């Protein structure tokens, strides 16, 4: 799909999210909800004396956090739909021919861990903080966007073996 058209449609989706629910998109928050719920179920004593878990375990917060879980589930379905319609459904480890699958998988995990940490610290990821933030013109949104992409560019040369 033409990237500008995709961007426009994504923008409309984002607008709809704000128009209906007053909030934008997100992804990392869903992971946080799952972790908090899981830890609470497995080890409730641990959540009760942790400042972090306490913030999100309280009844007041839980329905709001579940919003993102439902949204991410939607993303899964949406991606699946699109992939099947376009014939892109296939199990594979996508990697540059210059590295091995193993390297790619290790890099993927490291990237994920960094994103998990960073998104919590930054109060959002590219969709939640940067994209939605920019749409409402929040300073945090632009700061996040610049920090994420700026750092990506700064380290691109070092990581080039992974991609080109």
């Amino acid at each position, binding site marked *: 799909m033409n990237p500008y058209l995709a961007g426009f449609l994504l923008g409309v989706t984002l607008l709809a999210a704000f128009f209906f629910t007053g*909030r934008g998109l997100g992804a990392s928050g869903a992971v946080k909800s799952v972790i908090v719920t899981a830890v609470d179920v497995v080890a409730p004593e641990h959540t009760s004396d942790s400042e972090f878990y306490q913030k999100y375990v309280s009844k007041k917060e839980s329905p709001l956090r579940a919003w993102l879980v439902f949204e991410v589930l939607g993303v899964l379905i949406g991606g699946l739909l699109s992939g099947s319609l376009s014939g892109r459904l296939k199990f594979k480890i996508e990697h540059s021919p210059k590295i091995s699958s193993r390297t790619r998988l290790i890099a993927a995990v490291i990237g994920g861990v960094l994103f998990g940490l960073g998104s919590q610290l930054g109060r959002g990821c590219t969709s939640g903080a940067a994209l*939605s933030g920019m749409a409402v013109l929040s300073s945090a949104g632009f700061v996040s966007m610049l920090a994420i992409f700026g750092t990506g560019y700064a380290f691109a040369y070092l990581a080039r073996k992974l991609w080109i």
Partner: protein
Amino acid sequence: MNIRYLLLSIVALSLGIVLIFLPEKKYTRELTPEKLMLAINDNSRFMSTDYVAHMIIESNPSLVLIDVRDSTSFSQFSLPGATNIPLDSLLNSEWEGFLDQDYVKKVFYSNGSVYAAQAWTLTRRLGYENVYVLKGGINSWVETILRPLEPASTASSEEFDLYHTRIATSQFFGGGNAAVVSTDSKPAKKIIKKKSKSALQGGC
């Protein structure tokens, strides 16, 4: 391809130019008469003098007293830490940021409760949150805090406990003299009005 993108760019830039001149509107969250009626019938807007006294003694910053009488009355006597916003200047824009925020509880008081109740109704109608009325006003303050009335000997033990608490409280406030001039009225805390005041949570 290129012409299309050029046209789209022009459209986008034109929208941008329109945006430069688009005025910023404000939609006040005024209460409908029905909602206001509900709020009026709900007695939770009253705060007792005991509770307010307790908050002052604790130096609890979450509560702010607002004296809605005129400035002369205010300078003769006022409750500790109170800010004077005379009723007729309640709606002035300089107070909007102070009144229209959720962070502290604002308690209106006057000699009785008529003016305070009017202030409450006005601000509530405007959709301001966390506004309250000091039950009984200064008159009640004098009776319960400064010069608490001793309960009859047949009164319950709770009433006696309350009386003893009030005696202790009155000592804190220099009680015994009704005309104690409060010299420690702090200047109005200029609380910066935050744009997103709803309880809506969001983020990633």
